[in-house]
């Protein structure tokens, strides 16, 4: 994949990957062996029919390739960019065994980008309206996918979103250089054209409760994500200069703090930024810090390179851009000066011990190894949990011990007619899993609506377009 040169891109917020040129895309697609038993499809959580769209692509039938792809995956321009392909579709591609797997992610992105630019060449199907009303809470990938599916089935869909812009993590979390906001905005526009209504600035649990929505809608899909930041619980965490990754990224992505003072929201642009954690969120934060001008942008992670949970491409890009890695290091205190600004982080060195229940080798403290890491901004990226704001106002909704909503494999919760999916059910997971939940729940909702008691009274409301 052609990309912006590392030294240049480390100073701008433009997308790193530039997209495949046509010639390379066709060559790459042609590497697909069109397996009779395509293993790649088992690797994809939503079972995208990969050989089919690659075959159509190789044949130059782009409109058909796009149609096939969009039928399986509502946001391919997003997943093509952010899926951890190396552990999913590409990991199990037969070509991977003998060298390089087919670049499914890049090709998915290629076809999806073509489709975004040639929408007139894709058929627009106008469904027959059912008159059934469905409310969706949250406009992240789970909510957007469910909305698209339900609208396709002719239901009247309203999305309620707490923030002033739809997209969830795709808008406030994942940075522009990885997923241009234009793409998310286009996907949202597409849904609106398909008849989906989106009401921003509605905080369900405050503006409306779930029981209130139940009275107005025939079914509800809850997809409010897992947006509550976890802090380290070490002394000094409330000093000036300590951010949760959510706050840091929200200021910069949603509120455009990189453009201060043209944009009104500021962010501390530290010279030595320490990001605690090793996942996608940490990589996004540290690469953002670099772009904001940090002389040192550092990942502080208690395991080693091998255990980093982030996508391989993000780690690779971060390394190229000059991000420093402090492995086997765990913070125990944030240190400040007399004016309570962060000046450093007291850390301990770790070593890897026996594997724990998750199979990963557990980090153990090396006694007497404390040292001070100089830094002026600390970003805590060690995870998020379920936000209790909504669930606290709906006591009938069954939760697990971490506060996540309990839903079965069809997305059904403990309340009939109320479905849930995405991070609020799974805990922090991935875009494609959230989308998969959105799709399955939409099908369950459709089935539920066909049998729901309200049906009879609503038949008169059915309009045929």
């Amino acid at each position, binding site marked *: 994949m052609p990309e912006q040169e590392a030294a240049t891109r480390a100073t701008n917020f433009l997308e790193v990957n530039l997209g495949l040129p046509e010639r390379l895309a066709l060559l790459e697609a042609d590497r697909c062996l069109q397996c009779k038993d395509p293993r790649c499809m088992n690797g994809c959580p939503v079972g995208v029919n990969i050989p089919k769209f690659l075959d159509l692509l190789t044949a130059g039938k782009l409109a058909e390739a796009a149609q096939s792809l969009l039928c399986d995956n509502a946001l391919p321009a997003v997943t093509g960019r952010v899926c951890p392909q190396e552990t999913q579709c590409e990991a199990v591609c037969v070509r991977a065994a003998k060298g390089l797997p087919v670049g499914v992610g890049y090709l998915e992105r290629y076809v999806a980008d073509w489709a975004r630019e040639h929408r007139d060449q894709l058929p627009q199907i106008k469904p027959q309206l059912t008159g059934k009303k469905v409310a969706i809470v949250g406009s992240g990938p789970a909510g957007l996918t469910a909305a698209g599916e339900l609208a396709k089935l002719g239901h009247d869909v309203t999305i309620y979103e707490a923030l002033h812009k739809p997209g969830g993590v795709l808008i406030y979390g994942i940075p522009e250089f990885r997923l241009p906001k234009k793409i998310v905005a286009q996907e949202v526009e597409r849904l609106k054209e398909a008849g989906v209504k989106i009401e921003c600035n509605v905080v369900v649990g405050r503006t409306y409760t779930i029981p209130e929505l139940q009275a107005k809608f025939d079914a509800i899909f809850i997809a409010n994500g897992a947006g509550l930041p976890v802090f380290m619980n070490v002394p000094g965490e409330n000093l000036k200069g300590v951010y949760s990754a959510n706050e840091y990224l929200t200021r910069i992505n949603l509120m455009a703090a990189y*453009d201060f003072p043209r944009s009104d929201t500021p962010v501390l642009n530290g010279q030595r930024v320490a990001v605690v954690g090793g996942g996608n969120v940490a990589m996004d934060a540290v690469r953002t810090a670099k772009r904001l001008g940090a002389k040192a942008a550092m990942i502080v992670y208690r395991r080693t390179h091998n255990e980093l949970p982030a996508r391989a491409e993000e780690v690779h890009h971060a390394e190229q851009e000059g991000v420093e890695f402090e492995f086997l290091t765990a913070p125990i205190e944030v240190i400040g*000066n007399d004016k309570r600004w962060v000046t450093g982080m007291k850390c301990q060195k770790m070593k890897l011990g026996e594997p724990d229940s998750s199979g990963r080798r557990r980090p153990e403290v090396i006694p007497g190894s404390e040292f001070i890491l100089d830094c002026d901004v600390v970003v805590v990226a060690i995870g998020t949990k379920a936000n209790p704001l909504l669930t606290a106002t709906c006591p009938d909704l069954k939760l697990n011990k971490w506060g996540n909503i309990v839903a079965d494999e069809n997305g059904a919760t403990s309340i009939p007619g109320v479905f849930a999916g995405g991070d609020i059910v799974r805990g922090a997971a991935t875009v494609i899993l959230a989308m998969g939940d959105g799709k399955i729940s939409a099908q369950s909702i459709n089935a539920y609506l066909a049998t729901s008691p309200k049906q009879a009274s609503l038949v008169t409301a059915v309009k045929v377009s």
Partner: protein
Amino acid sequence: MHQILAKQSLSPNVTRLDVHAQRIAEIRQAGQFVIVHLNENSERIPLTIADSNPATGTITLVIQAVGKSTNELVALNAGEFIRDVAGPLGHPTEMITSGHALCIGGGVGTAVAHPIAQGLNKVGVRVTSVIGGRSKEWVIFENELKRYGNVIVCTDDGSYGRKGFVTDAVKEILAKEKVDIVYAVGPVPMMRAVANLTRGLGVHTIVSLNPVMIDGTGMCGGCRVSVGNETKFACVDGPEFDGHTVNFDELQDRLSTYREFEQRSVACARGTCRMEMPTTTPA
């Protein structure tokens, strides 16, 4: 989009805006706030819902112009629009249902105390309000508060009401009368002083905290405050807390985080910016 239906200047730097927000006007309760986002490039800032009228679908915001965002808001005229208003956010005020309550408002906090006095009065609690300002022209919401009980006005220069700080009047009342609960809303030093006064007397005291917020939904943690040695998110766990357990020093300090940026933001808006971009946290 939310239209401004009425505008009124209350004091030299405090303005009242009545803003259309039907749903919020219908369900808001005392102590709750909204997040206001004027336009695409603006900050999201929290403002207390000072009053509402479900019939006209308006909420009343009382805004003290301190920086760029608040100055832009008070520069709007009736008929103009605010892009986003989200809410009502935060927990409603913890109310008592009988007895005597003292509602203390400093500066713009007087308007924030208003819905609390209103709510207490509604359930039959006796309300005494103590409000303050630098001088006569800075005193706001006196007439509104009079509807709910006795109002004692204090001015720093004695140009109106009693001379002195609200805390002086509060001290006297606490010495003379039985008070079941104190609600204090205003600048951090004022809330801290009131909490220090009532702590020894064992009078339950509720303060309304004003940390910097972004989303107002518990997603960013930027609004975190230390209360009784626990970290709380003011937007979802508050904004009101037991004043005797709040770490006011930390709150005051965190509020200064963006001071240099705020100054630059205002200077740039005026076209008088000579400052360098703050590059790193000041030493």
